[in-house]
Structure formats: C-alpha cells, structure tokens
C-alpha cells in the first residue's frame, strides 16, 4: 500500500511527535508513505477571508501533486483533511467555483486530478483492517482504560462513520485488548479556536470533556485529531486551577497508543514529548 | 434550425409503470412532454414487432417499462420481455439504430418520481443522438 503523505503545518511544526508515531506505526504495518514534494498550506486559514478561490486552489494544488504519487492521499491533520475533502466536493458540485480554481491551477501549470483523501484512522480500520493489525500486536493494552474522543472534523460533514456516534477507535482499541470506555461526549466540541483566546467558554468545554473522561475512570484519552489533542492537553493545569479540580489525564494521538501495542518504544512514538506524561508500564 | 423535439413512445405494463405514471400525475410531478405512453397488460406482451413498428412510424426512441424482477403481476412476463429486449437490441444495432434508442426500465407502481427521472433522462439521451431519420436514410432514398 502506497499513499501520498501530506503532513501539513501542524505535524511539521507543532506536532512532530505525532508525525514520528505515524511513520513508525505505518512502517510496522507495511504502509509506504511518500511525502508530497513541495506541498503548501492547505488553505483552511485566514487566506479564505481574502480569496476563496485561492484558499481552495491551495489544497487543489496539493491534491494535484499528490496525484503524481498515488491515487490516495494521507492527511493526518483533520483541519487539512476537511479542507481537502471540501475542495473535492466543491470542485464536483460547483462548476463556477471550479472554473476559478482551474484558472489558478493553470497559472502554476497544473491539471486538476482528484485523488481520494483519507485519514490514518481510516487506513488502519478500513484499508489494513483490524485482523491484520491484530497479527502485528506485540503486547496487548489490557488494563488501560481508553477514552476514545473523535471530535467533529473527521466525523462531520464528510466523515465515513455515524456523525454522532463513531466507533472505529472503540473497535480498534478493544481489538488491542484495552478497556474501552463508552464515552458519550466522543463527538462534542473541544473548544476549537475559542481556547486560543483563553476564553472561559472554550475552556469550560474542555473541562467537561476531561472531567467526564476521568469520571468514567479513563486513564488515557486517544484522539484522531491534533486540534483536539492540543486543546485537551495544553490547558489542563489552567483548567484544574480554574475549577479547583484535578482534570489531568494524558492525551495521545491514536497512533501513539497503537504504536505501543505494536511493540514500538515510547521515544519512537514521541510519547516522551507529551505535555501530560504517559507510560504503558504504569498501567 | 428548429429545436429537435424527440418523438418517443413508452410501451408500459398496466400494473406498475402505468400506475406510477398515474401517481406522478396525481402528485403533479412535471416531466417531459415527448414521451407518450402506450399501455399493455404486461411487458411480456411487448412483441419486438411493436418496437420496429414504432421506429418505422417515426419514433426516435422506444421505452419498454415493466415490473421489477420478481414483482411481475403474471409471475415472469417481465423476464420474457427482458430476453426479447436483449436479442432485439442486437438486431436493432445491426440495422444502424443506436442501442441507446431502445431502453428497458423497471418502474414499480410506487416509483412515481422514477417516471420523471427515466423519461427526462431518456429524452436527454435521444436529444444527444438527434433524429433517427429512418425514412430519409432508407425508405425514401431508394
């Protein structure tokens, strides 16, 4: 299996350790990742407010470049993922916008060629399949109480699972013998960019998530989304003091925990880089 | 040149498509005026001669509509229709009539919206192909 790999700024800049875990896990699972040459911003940023065509064209360009490598593109950052899927949708549904974007692409000498954009979780669950994954397990995760948290970006609107009640991570980690907690808040808001301004409303959302995760006895939250990982991880101290209640709980990108099951070391998976430390030996 | 208005006949089963077309009417679903319905009791009554006759009489396209497989009011008339249709298509194609001008569709009594869907879509297809010109090309060109 060969995928065109699009890290995006997040995995390159703020979450290199997720990038590490991803590469190591897929190495073990025998998935080849070829990074897209000269990839650029996905456009899901301020640029949209300046020119929609450009913001779409940015992702369109990445997609065209990806097409040179494979017919499937791997995007771990859910922000980018959403933007790319949006572009694919718009290019198909809105001929007028399509024309604009094609013009932009023409300027950089690219021909529009859509590819399938997938999230690593979809590769693990759908393309590889749990049975294959199980074969590769070195140590099971029994004793770990996993709280799977999906957020909104991979579930809505282009998600492949139930928009309110996805279960792929539940199934994945049950397969790895972890104790998976039925987490009713699995698709609730993580505060997104509200937290960036330190706004109390944003933090209260994170607080609810962390609190309930602990209340249900979870000892690790796994996420498929770096935005969620950021929000859930970064503000734990602040929230604990704000609400006078210890809400600290490690937050792992799902490949990091999966990696452990596959026998990879914590450093290979960048787990040592987490703000809230997690160690499998301490199960 | 005047807009091409296809002349199309749909030979339909009394128990499914004819009812669906009635329901489409009751529901005021608007669709193409170019497909005109001829009713038979069962798509199994459709004799390839009828289709050839329609082409001879200026049809630019012919639709045959019956009940979905397994739903035939007479058990398996629609299967007979299907087998004849498959062989007839081969003959018609050989005679220089594009296969797309002859189509068989299953439309259940409950599928009123499909009547519009199928009829409109068929008309579009025939418009793409243009007039059949059987008379000009063969009969009046000895």
């Amino acid at each position, binding site marked *: 299996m060969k995928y065109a790999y699009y890290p995006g700024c997040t995995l390159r800049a703020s979450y290199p350790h997720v990038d590490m875990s991803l590469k190591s896990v897929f190495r073990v699972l025998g998935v080849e990742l070829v990074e897209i040459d000269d990839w650029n911003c996905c456009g899901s940023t301020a640029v949209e407010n300046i020119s929609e065509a450009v913001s779409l064209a940015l992702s369109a360009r990445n997609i065209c470049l990806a097409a040179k490598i494979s017919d499937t593109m791997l995007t771990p950052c859910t922000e980018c993922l959403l933007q790319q899927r949006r572009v694919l949708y718009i290019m198909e549904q809105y001929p007028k916008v399509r024309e604009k974007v094609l013009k932009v692409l023409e300027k950089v000498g690219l021909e529009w060629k859509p590819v399938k954009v997938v999230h690593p979780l979809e590769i693990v669950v759908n393309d590889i399949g749990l049975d294959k994954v199980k074969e590769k397990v070195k140590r099971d995760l029994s004793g770990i109480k996993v709280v799977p948290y999906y957020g909104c970006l991979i579930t809505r609107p282009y998600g492949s699972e*139930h928009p*309110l*009640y996805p279960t792929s991570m539940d199934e994945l980690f049950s397969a790895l013998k972890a104790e998976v907690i*039925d987490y*009713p*808040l699995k698709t609730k808001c993580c505060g997104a960019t509200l937290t960036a301004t330190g706004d109390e409303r944003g933090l209260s959302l994170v607080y*609810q998530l962390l609190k*309930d995760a602990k209340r249900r006895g979870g000892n690790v939250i796994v996420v498929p989304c770096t935005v969620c990982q950021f929000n859930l991880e970064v503000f734990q101290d602040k929230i604990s003091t704000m609400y006078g209640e210890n809400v600290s709980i490690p937050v792992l990108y799902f490949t990091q925990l999966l990696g452990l099951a596959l026998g990879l070391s914590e450093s290979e998976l960048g787990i040592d880089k987490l703000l809230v430390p997690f160690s499998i030996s301490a199960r | 040149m005047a807009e091409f208005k296809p*002349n199309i*006949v749909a*030979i339909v089963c009394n*128990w*499914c498509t004819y*009812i669906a*077309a*009635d329901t*489409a*009417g*009751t529901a*005021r*679903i*608007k*669709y193409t*005026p170019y497909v*005109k*319905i*001829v009713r*038979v*009791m*069962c798509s*199994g*009554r*459709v*004799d390839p*001669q*009828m289709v050839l*006759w*329609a082409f001879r*009489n*200026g*049809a630019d396209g012919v639709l045959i509509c019956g009940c979905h497989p*397994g*739903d035939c*009011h*007479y*058990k*398996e*008339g629609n299967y*007979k229709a299907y087998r*004849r249709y498959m062989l007839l298509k081969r003959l018609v194609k050989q005679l220089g009539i594009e296969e797309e001008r002859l189509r068989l569709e299953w439309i*259940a*009594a*409950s*599928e009123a919206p499909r009547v*519009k869907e199928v009829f409109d879509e068929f008309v579009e297809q025939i418009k793409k192909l243009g007039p059949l010109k059987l008379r000009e090309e063969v009969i009046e060109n000895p």
Partner: protein
Amino acid sequence: MSREEVRIGVYVCHCGTNIAGVVNVEEVVEYIKKIPGVVVARHYVYMCSEAGQNLIKQDIKEHKLNRVVVASCSPNLHENTFRRAVAEAGLNPYYFQMANIREHCSWVTEDPKEATEKAKMIVRAAVERVKYHEPLEKKKVEVKDKILVVGGGIAGISAALVCANAGKTVYLVEKSPSIGGMMSRLDKTFPTLDCAACILTPKMNEVASHPNIKLITYAEVESVEGFVGNFKVRIRKKPRYVIEDLCVGCEKCVEACVFKEPKFYDEWSFGLKKRKPVYIPFPYAVPRKAIIDPESCLYLKYGRCKQTCVEACDRNAIDFNQKEEIIEVEVGAIILATGYKFIDVSKLPQYGYGKYPNVYIAPEVEVMLNASGPTRGEIILRDGRKPKSVAIIHCVGSRDENNKKYCSRLCCMAAIKLAHLIKERTEAEVYNFYIDIRAAGKGYEEFYKRVASEGVRFIRGKVAEITDVALTPEEEGKLIVRVEDTLAGVIRRIPVDMVVLMPALEPATGVEEVSKMFGVSVTEDFWFLERHPKLAPIATFADGIFLAGCCQGPKDIPDTVMQAEGAAGDALALVSRGYIELEPNIVSIDPEKCSGCRVCVGMCPFGALKYNEEKGVTEVIEALCKGCGTCAAACPSGAIQQNLFKDKQVYAEIAGILAVGGE
C-alpha cells in the same frame, strides 16, 4: 377486416380546469375532427357527469356512432363509467377507448402548447385504436364465499367479526400465539381514556367463540394461488407442543416447569418481564392456551428434561411430537391486516436507548402501565425507583430526513395519553418535547388541552440528545435532555429520571415477502399501496385483496377499525355477489393459423395453454388465462391474439401516438 363503416364519437373532457386549464381542448377537438372515421368530436366540462354521459348516449343514437373515445382522466378511474354509458346506449361496451390526458398529460406538463400537442397525439392514438375494436363479453366466474383475514390485531379482529356476522366463513390467521396485537398491550386509549382491555377482550373472545370464524393462531400464510374470487391459500401452523383442544389454560404446566424462575425474553411485554419456556402469552390471551417455545425448552432443545410439565397436565395436553401442519383453504376475498412495528431506536444513538437503562420506548411504557403488565400498572424504573420527572420525546425517527420522512400519526396523541397516565400514577413532572402537536381527530384537541391544563409541560423543539453528563450538581445522576426550545428561543438542558421515546412506525417484519406473495404493491416505505389514495383507500391493485389498518400506513385505533370494517364491507360485497366478471382480455388461438409448434405453451406460467394431439393445434383454457398476452407476443405465426390488445389494435395505437403534427 371486413367491417361496417366506423363512425367514431370523440369527447374531450375539461375536468373543470384540471385538463382545460392546461390543454387547449378546442384545438384538440378541431384536430381530431379531421381524422377519417370521426363523426362527432366535442369537448365538455365534466364527461363523467350525468350530463356528460348523456351527451355520449344521444350522439350514439343521433349520429349512429359505433365507436366512442373519451379523453379525460386515467382509465383506472372512469373506464367502467363510460363503458356502462356506451352499453346503456345499446353499443357493446368494448367499442370504447379512453385517452388519459389528465394524469399523463395536463397534470405533468408545464408548457400548455406542448401539453396540447401531446394531448392531440394521445387522443389520436385512441381514435386510431378504437377503429379496430371488437365486441366482447365479460366472462363470469363463480366466487368462493369464504374470506381470509391475515393478522389478528384490532384491524383483523374487527374485519373478521363484520364478515362473520354477515354469515360468511372467515379464516383469521395470526402469526403469534394470541390475537390482540399491539392494542392488547395498551392500558388506556386516547382520547376517551377508556380501558383498552375492556373494549378489546370482548371482541377477542367473540372471535374465539364465533361459529363462522376459524381462528388459526401461531401460523403464517405460506403461499397464495388463483385469482379474485378463487384464491387457494396454504397456511403453515407452527407446532405449539400443546394440544389446543385439550388445554384449558390452567397454567399448571407453567408452575411445574423445571425452570422455577421465568428467565426468557417475553415477546408480549417487549422483554420487560420474563417468561418460562412454557407459558401463556398474556392473561387475557385468545386462545388462552399454553405454548412451549422450542428455543428455550430443555426437552425440545436438548431432548433432556424431567418433563414436569407433562406430569402436571391432568388433561395430557402437552405433546412434544406435535409437527407443524399445512392448512389449505379456498377463499373469494382476502383482507390484509398485518400491522406495524416500531423502528429500532438504538440505531439513533443520540437518544441513548439501550445505553441508559432509564430510557424507554413507548410500547414498553404502555406495557408497564398495563394492569396485567410486569409492574401491575406501576411506573417503576429499572433501578426500582419511581420517577419524579419524565421526558416524553415525540417524532423519534419520524419527520426526520435521516430516518422516516413521514409522520407516524398516532404518536402525538399516544404521547399526550402517556403523559397523562404517568402524571396520574407518579405525580412526576412530565415534559413533552414535540415538533408540532397533531391532534386532528374527534375530541383530540380537547384532550390535548385537558392534559396541558393538568400541568404536563409541552416544549416545542426537536431533542438534540439525551446524556448523563452532568454539568451542575442538580444534573448529577439524572438523564439530561438537550433541546432547543423554539418558542422561548433558548437551548435547554432538562434533567429527568425517565425518558420515553415515541418511535416511528414501520411496516411489520416480512412485509416484502407478503407483498410478493399476494401480489400487492408497496410504497417506497413499504406500506401496502391502496388502489387510490382517496377513492379506493381500501382496495389494492390486486383484485379481491383489501387492506385494513396500519399495513397501509400509520393509523390510530378509530381509523384502523373504520378501515377494517370498510375492508369487510368490500370483501362481503365481492363474495356475496356469488360471481365476478373478468375483463375479457384473455387470448384466443386461431386454429386455421396454429401449426401446433408449441412455442406458446412454455410461455404460460398458469398452464392455460394445452396442445391438442389429434387436432394438432394448441388450445386455450379460458378459466386459467390471466390475460398477460405473453404468449401472443411469442406466437410465431400470429395465431394467438389477445382481446383488447390485438396486434392490429396496438399497432394502430402506436402509429397514432407517433403521428407527428397533423399528418
């Protein structure tokens, strides 16, 4: 064909503005006048009216018409009306052809010019066709004066009783071990709040004791053959392992069962209570006979058991060797009353059914409220508490783009009834969450008002989710209903002890097989399709098969009973007549042309074609011919012709409908 000169009268109907509003009827008439053979062509505001019909009759006399074409609505509506009119004027009714310029033209065409052109062609086709029409006689067929009712809910029961009281033999087939259906689970019924059992049980017992009703429970229809008036039905009766004639329903066997405690899923109570392998479905079941479930009975499953039940039964009613039996009946009419079921709400995770023990579906609560239910009519949560606050959620899966788009119709009133009963028995705070309250029915609005005035709360808004995640101390340990109160324009979180979901209705399991078996069409939601939404809401397109109750669409009890008794009326009208006239569209074989090649014989699934050895030709058994015409299409020598669909007639129609412009 050597025939007398054809003189055709053509009548274009305005149907008020339904046709004339779009189609230029004058223009059509002018066009038709020019067609050879047309003697008179008129347009009139309502052809189906008395006056319209008289118009035809006069012309037939004055202008010596021998053919008539009426261009109006679908033949499915008025073909017979006009055939009768033609016949009354002394012409053979089959010298008539109808052109459908309403359903197939004026109602479906945007542009009046196009509509008019299309109408011309449709009428022209009918004119060309009618020229080749021939006089025909309807065939009379004797009708069996027995009636089959499928489904023993309130619909089936009501229909069966009416038919039986009219003196006809009725076979009532019920899938489960007792009749009574959904209604047997209810405690009270809206809007009058009279006791469901009190009004249902008498009817159930009447069914059981009625001399004209053959009640066949725990059975399913296996196959249906024949046609209107003469259906041959095979019914498969599953073994009950209890001889019904011997069992008196004393329940000694139930007490004696080696399972001291009931521990198996009980169908009647939706699993709220448990039952033993040997059981009586519910206290007022009819027939009130024990039944043994082969899935849970040790002896039937493993062949090893002390069989204490057998000893306990002093009437030796238990018979483990009972086999399923096939019952064959012949009936003239069939009434389908197969009912409905509730959608599986666990597929809608946001409501938390199956996740939170205190989320219930309405039928469970109905059973709970039922005096013969597991809690003897008390509302007691799974954790044993009495709820202090209850949320009732409307439209769970109904009026929902992602589930059932339709309104399930009875939930609003049922919810209001439940609200009343729950409040009455628990004094809990009761909330209704609704999109709209649909209280269209006699005394319904009044009932709604009354319950509202009793202090039941009504909050307009579709519930987003049920969660147990508490944000405030008072939410702790409760179920929180998150909803947008669209009247107050605020998002609310309402903590309650108990949630009741009103699930959407859907057709009963196996409806697809049933529809195939009986040849009844279904809607896209699989409700059985009536012949006409307004004018024939009971009949189906399969002659002799009628619909009663929810199998045709969601209905409450009054509507169900109304339709059931209507269906009984239709069925009785059919069987009482003693005979029916079949459309004469059967085939005939011209022995002068038939060479006995026997290609046709294999075409007929009804065995209506037989090769006559000594004559060397194939012959038609008219009684068996259903008139599909498949053999006519296959006959290599054109020796087979189908009445009403002779080659000449169909060719003429095709040529007519294709003729471009005024050609």
